[in-house]
């Protein structure tokens, strides 16, 4: 196992906790807005680390770029999705918790 493989594996491992933290936030936070915070931030970092790790692991530039593309698409989807849900919730008059 080469060094890049090891590093890649480590990065993938490092990404995992973020997924779990996101789910934890999803389950524990009190309202939709705070849950959106948890979701939009953690999962994408997790996925980013997984992509980065796998890119190193694959050892191929092209595969790495494809993984980057997938990550960027997912980023766009979550950032825009979180914003859309948050704004619509506000426009519909859903009150944030604790305000």
């Amino acid at each position, binding site marked *: 196992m080469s060094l890049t493989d090891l590093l890649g594996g480590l990065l993938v491992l490092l990404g995992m906790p973020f997924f779990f933290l996101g*789910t934890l936030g999803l389950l524990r936070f009190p309202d*939709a807005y705070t849950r*959106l915070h948890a979701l939009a931030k953690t999962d994408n970092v997790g996925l980013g680390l997984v992509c980065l790790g796998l890119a190193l*692991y694959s050892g191929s530039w092209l595969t790495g770029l494809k993984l980057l593309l*997938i990550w960027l698409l*997912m980023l766009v989807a979550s950032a*825009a999705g979180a914003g859309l849900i948050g704004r*619509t919730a506000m426009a*519909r008059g859903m009150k944030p918790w604790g305000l």
Partner: protein
Amino acid sequence: MTEVFAVLVLLLLLNIVVGLARVLRGPSAADRMLASEMFSTSAVAILLLLAFILDSPPLLDVALVLALLAALAVVTFVGRAWSDLQSRQSESARGMESRESD
């Protein structure tokens, strides 16, 4: 290394299963929708890992398609389903969503 990845796949799947509790509990439609968005991120991660475990590049394409379409459900939800659900809620005093979205 693939063994480690396989364990991670399992953990991610477990992560999804645990997250299903949010779909069960809601309470509002938005909560369920964002839970489903979380699942697509996890599913993409699972597919990427599987692509390397099984050494099967087509799975990257499956992940790509999932990532590309992740926004569609949210946009439909925001644009069509939710707006109508909620605007109707004010008209009819009690409905499924009104009971749930407090």
